[in-house]
């Protein structure tokens, strides 16, 4: 399948471009909780983002050919189904929604599900939207687990001591490859691979060997050389254990030297939106041959080095672009996807 549209709503702005401009300008506030400014309920926010994402491309949403996949850990008031149904109703989509609720990996898992449903011929289009709201329920729980930092999180840094929470809405619109026959594109992102693996180890602590993430990385690398991977968007929550685990998984997969980043310093951990938000931003920046920086990182703080940078980087040459997104979460879940930029001569 191919990516045909995307849109994000974050505290930094209401478009992908606005968010990237502020990141590259270094114009991002130091927040411990990244709340969206407006009060707005879950379904309204998602509908607004989906509507924007659909604007530029000829993807119909009020048809049985399009499936809506919602990625969320807690939905609205702990209800996952009702807000998803409202999204479908407001967009006049006749299909029952699919809600992926797979902890912090949901946003990547939802992309994998979209690909399966399109490749199996069940749907021509998939609209994937991720959203979570930082309620007292969620905040108190992460605090009780001692996972929150009192300062701006600093992924992979020696002084990292926890994560920040954040709110965002992120939408990706996908179409079957056949879409190109009727809507030719000069350049586009093609979904190449995706998978999930459980650590089978612990519910809240990541595997010491990074087993699930390691297996995910190996599987999405099939068909491409590690040295040809342009960059990896990491989870990089800023907790001691997560970032250490990722450094181990990268090392085991032979990917320690591949440029990487974590965007948690800009947005916090946006839970069900994270996998979509971070994929969208990294892909868009890569189109300008830019690797987005990692806010908060100054000094390597993991056993194995991770090629993250405090400043953004330009990609030299004109090699093909291959992007990997990696996430892990409670319940031992890990997920990764790989995209390739296809440019027609």
């Amino acid at each position, binding site marked *: 399948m191919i990516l045909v549209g995307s849109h994000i709503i974050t505290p930094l702005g209401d478009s992908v471009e606005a968010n990237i401009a502020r990141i590259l300008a270094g114009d991002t506030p130091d927040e411990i909780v990244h709340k969206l400014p407006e009060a707005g309920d879950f379904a309204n926010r998602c509908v607004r983002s989906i509507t924007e994402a659909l604007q530029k491309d000829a993807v119909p949403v009020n048809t049985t050919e399009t499936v809506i996949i919602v990625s969320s*850990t*807690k*939905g609205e008031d*702990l209800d*996952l*189904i009702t807000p*998803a*149904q409202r999204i479908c109703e407001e967009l006049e989509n006749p299909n*029952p*929604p*699919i*809600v*992926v*609720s*797979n*902890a912090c990996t949901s946003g990547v*898992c939802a992309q994998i*599900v979209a690909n*399966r*449903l399109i*490749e*199996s011929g*069940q749907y021509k289009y998939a609209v994937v939207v991720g959203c979570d709201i930082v309620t*007292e*329920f969620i905040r*108190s*729980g*992460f*605090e*009780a*687990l*001692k996972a929150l930092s009192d300062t701006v999180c600093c992924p992979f840094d020696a002084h990292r001591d926890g994560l920040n929470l954040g709110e965002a809405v992120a939408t990706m619109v996908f179409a079957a490859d056949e879409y190109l026959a009727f809507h030719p594109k000069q350049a586009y992102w093609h979904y190449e691979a995706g*998978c*999930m*693996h*459980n*650590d*089978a*180890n*612990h*519910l*809240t602590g990541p595997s010491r060997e990074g*087993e*699930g993430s390691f*297996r995910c990385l190996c*599987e999405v690398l099939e068909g491409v050389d590690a040295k040809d991977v342009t960059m990896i968007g990491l989870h990089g929550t800023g907790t001691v254990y997560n970032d250490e685990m990722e450094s181990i998984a990268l090392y085991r997969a032979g990917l320690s030297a591949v440029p990487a980043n974590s965007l948690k310093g800009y947005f916090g951990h946006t839970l069900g939106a994270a996998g979509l938000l971070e994929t969208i931003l990294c892909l868009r920046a890569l189109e300008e041959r830019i690797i987005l920086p990692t806010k908060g990182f100054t000094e390597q703080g993991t056993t194995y080095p991770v090629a993250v940078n405090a400043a953004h980087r330009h990609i030299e040459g004109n090699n093909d672009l291959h992007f990997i997104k990696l996430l892990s*979460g*409670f*319940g*031992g*879940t890990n997920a990764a996807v790989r995209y390739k930029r296809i440019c027609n001569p």
Partner: protein
Amino acid sequence: MQSIADIVLTSETRLTDVYRTQIGDYPKFFKMDLLCRVGFVASELLLQQEGVERFVPRDNRAVVLAGRSGCIHNDRAYEATIQPDNYFPSPSLFVYTLPNIVTGEIAIRNKYLGETMYYALQEEEQLLPLIEATLSDKISSVLGGWIEAIDDEHFIAKLHIWIR
């Protein structure tokens, strides 16, 4: 796609009795929330029925569960610990406020390193196409099904082992 084993567990089952008489070697059971207990007991009975050697690490089996209500029973229990007049948030309850935790419990118990996934769906019939699309060259079987756990008197698990 075909089912090679199946089980239905309803709230007539006394979970603790079944655990003691038919499982019995996994004290973590007593730490689990209701959704996990239901899923765990049902998966144990299902896998006993399948009859292949167990607890051998494998990554070609997915655990895919779905329901309408997620982990609402435990969500309410955690919510009760964060009331303004009685504020003692319980980390051990918070861990179970994610509906995919039950898939993780089954993966840990059985050393399954493959896919684990939870879908919130309106209708049970939505799940089969999702399981069918999960099976692949790499995922040769799915332990999957519908699971709802509202309270001790209202729960159900309908699980299968699916192969291509």
